[in-house]
């Protein structure tokens, strides 16, 4: 498991231990990866983050159009693997969790401990925002490479 911010580590480790999730990705609503577990290639992480953020954006717009407010989560049940995608509010903005799990656990267990992780993340998040430079097109690739290096150690 790798995380860009240290205060994410404990809640995420607890979630992984309790839920038996195979893959987990935490990202901002714009698809910037905050932490990952189980991915072995940076390309997979980038693709999953982009797809996850896109799906959440689409479903939230669908919810708005249908007057449903916000969907709490989206579950795809598969024969061998299933997937939970859920957005949640943190003091650092709106984040998204993408969890892939197998038949050794259940959607109820994953959802239960995911909700607990969200509470722990909200409690652990530093209240003051870290100073950050504005995201410019010329900085984007450097920032992306730095994040991937931190998450994959290369």
């Amino acid at each position: 498991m790798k995380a860009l911010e240290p205060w994410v580590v404990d809640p995420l480790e607890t979630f992984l231990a309790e839920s038996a999730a195979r893959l987990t990705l935490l990202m901002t609503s714009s698809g910037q990866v905050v932490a990952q577990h189980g991915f072995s290639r940076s390309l997979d992480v980038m693709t999953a983050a982009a797809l996850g953020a896109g799906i959440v954006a689409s479903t939230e717009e669908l919810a708005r159009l249908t007057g449903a407010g916000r969907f709490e989560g989206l579950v795809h049940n598969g024969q061998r693997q299933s997937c939970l995608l859920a957005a949640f509010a943190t003091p650092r903005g709106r984040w998204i969790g993408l969890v892939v799990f197998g038949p050794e656990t259940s959607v109820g267990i994953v959802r239960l401990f995911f909700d607990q992780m969200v509470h722990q993340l909200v409690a652990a998040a530093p209240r003051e925002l870290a100073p950050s430079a504005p995201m410019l097109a010329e900085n984007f690739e450097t920032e992306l490479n730095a994040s991937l290096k931190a998450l994959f150690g290369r």
Partner: protein
Amino acid sequence: MTETQTALDRVTRVPGVRGALVIAAADGLVVAEQLMEDVDGQAVAALAGSLVLRLARTAESAGLGRPRFLHLRGDAGSVLAAPGADDLVLVAVVGPDANLGLARLELLEAAGRLA
């Protein structure tokens, strides 16, 4: 009234029962519930579903067949579960002073009628 609602009514009428749920064991999700306010139905469904599936595998591995009734006893009460048809499980959360014998009978009878 549906069979599910009837099952929940029968179980929650037993003295000391703090809530009853019908859950889908494989998903660990609530199908229907009648619970007191302080009972977390989502957590009970997730954990009881997992417990039932694991104990079923254990019992079948030991040659005991499919479990008919589970009783998890804690310091402040018990969780009772009776598997029914179609992956459904009838679960009751009971306090320490509950009539466990009557709760067991009602659970088994009601679980047998779940479709």
